């Protein structure tokens, strides 16, 4: 769903202070300096609040690219 992709891009862009226009579904943690292990924790907290979901830790640590996040949100919401 394109809307969901936009929302995830927006979250990544805001949290890690990167230009939303530069993000694609393949953008990943390794490309964004602020998306480190602390960034990962912030991201999980934000996703849990934004989508009102609980993310199991073993799942959370794998959410390291925009497409993985979108897929996960699709299946959990």
């Amino acid at each position, binding site marked *: 769903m394109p809307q969901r992709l936009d929302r995830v891009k*927006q*979250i990544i862009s*805001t*949290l890690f*202070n990167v230009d939303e226009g530069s993000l694609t579904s393949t953008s990943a943690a390794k490309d964004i300096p602020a998306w480190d292990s*602390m960034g990962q*924790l*912030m991201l999980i*907290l*934000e996703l*849990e*609040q*934004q*989508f*009102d979901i609980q993310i199991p*830790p073993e799942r*959370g640590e794998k959410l390291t690219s925009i497409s993985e996040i979108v897929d996960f949100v699709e299946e959990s919401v």
Partner: protein
Amino acid sequence: MKGSIEISEAKAAYTKAVADKNAAAMLAHAHTFLSLSPTLGTAQQIVNTLPLDLPDRAAVRRKVAFLRSYTVEPSIPFLRALARLHGVDLTVKVGDFNSYAQEVIDPASWLYQFNPDIVILASQTRDVAPDLWYGSGDVSPEEAESLVSSIVSPLVSIIDCLRSRTSASLIIQNLEQPEIPNAGLLDSRRKTGQEELIKMVNRRLSLAALKYDGVYILDYDALVARHGRERWTDERKWLTSRSPVAANCLIFAAREYLRFVLPLSGRLSKVLVVDLDNTLWGGIIGEDGPAGIKIGPEYPGATYLSLQRAILKIADRGVLLAICSKNNLADALEVLENHPEMLLRPKHFAAIRINWIDKAQNLRDIAAELNVGIDSIAFLDDNPVERQRIKLELPEVSVIDLPADPAGYASTLLSSPVFERLTITAEDRARGSYYSAQRERKSSESSAGSLEDFYRSLEMKSEIVAVTPTTLARIAQLTQKTNQLNMTTKRYTESEVQAMTRDPAWNLFGIKIVDKFGDNGIVGAVFLKVVGDTIDIDTFLLSCRVIGRTVETMILSRVCDIGVAAGCSKLIGWFLPTKKNEPAAKIYPDSGFSKIEENESGSLWQLSLRGELIKKPEWIA
């Protein structure tokens, strides 16, 4: 997500303000956006985009160092966003996990190189006092003493070392209680159970902090309890990321830090400006009258009484109080001076603006009169439209966002960080009374001129109306309902009034008042009876909407004219006191009547029509 439409709207409004580069609108919408959607994303967006400087408020910059035993990072964007809303730019650095002792002891550590203004020691019971957290507290009093000392002493050493090496303000979190003590109910059966031991540590820590300048205890236990121990902790995040605070509570932790950061940044409100109608009391004085407004020990008046108590507590911290209300001055003063249930009286206010002028202008005037910057003003008003207007017109003002339910007013005010003080002097406490004394002196010097200006500014026009089929109901109703400015409080039905109009001895009329704010309709009634050469004022009443505007003088001048035209030599009128008509007591003596009789029901007043007659005030056309 709950209220997702409101959130999208708030986000869109904020985003638009950012695109428009409208700082006031950004600030106004940022407050709303963050309170509706308190997530890390919102906080980070505010940190990324909200400007710090406003026309009349330069940014303050502060450096904050966190020494910590757990992951505090998720609360930092919230703290920085909240500080930014108040024009405080925070640079934050965080130490390593559980390394604070070394960081404090080593003079070459990052801590001293960073040279912070504020140091926060963020630790939790399980890290600082694992024996207490995991133990059952089943110890002898002697063991308890050494256990407590073994926890407090290292903390005091850290405080001592920090105090000797830096002038930064130190904020030390105390120890939170567990959700349930390890021994369960048995804990309370022990003299030195787990909860008691934690309390002992916290008491000892508080006393130690008092010995130093600039060392403050953040009551972390009270903070967690306030929001609920179960809700506060996210055990899974603790176990996986050492981040114990649940996502929904991060903003509460940040708000608690903000309570210290604002006074430590000199960002505080020195004046609390309050509205009157539906804020200090329930209802609208101009419509409901002093008897109709809600204030007192019973609900709903009790909610407003609670707010008045809270306002007095804020004043006790050295904050000046002022009034800004769209009202008739006399109506409002009547309540402030004489309503028996009011806690707040004119003497509590350093400045009073009760008029029909735009509130933004009034706030500017109040700031000038009290010689404070506009950014030292806080504004308390139930009306969201007025609040929005001030936010957009005067973004420097701290607008208190009251909830819809008045029952929440008092706690909202008391929890506002802009009134936090970390020290208070005797002078702070006395400041309010000094200003109100000065205000009274000033007003007695200039009241004559300004009051006449005020009357003139109302552009009042009066009209005498006869009792006709169209006015009969209203005039009879006025005799039934008017309590305050009513000389005799005689109640008449429509048919009684109708009958009196057919009797030539009676002269009945109503009074209409139109002013620049509109047509007030029929606001008064006078029933005169001619007896020989005397005019007896049987009924003389005026709605409280127009009290204090000299309309009563205008009416009496009219009565004089009627008396002279009828060839009478004097006016007489009874004043029959009731519980409510105190405002009418002085009208006859102030208008030159003399008392000729007095009994248990009241007093009889007389005015000769042979001498000087009462003049119509020049400002009423």
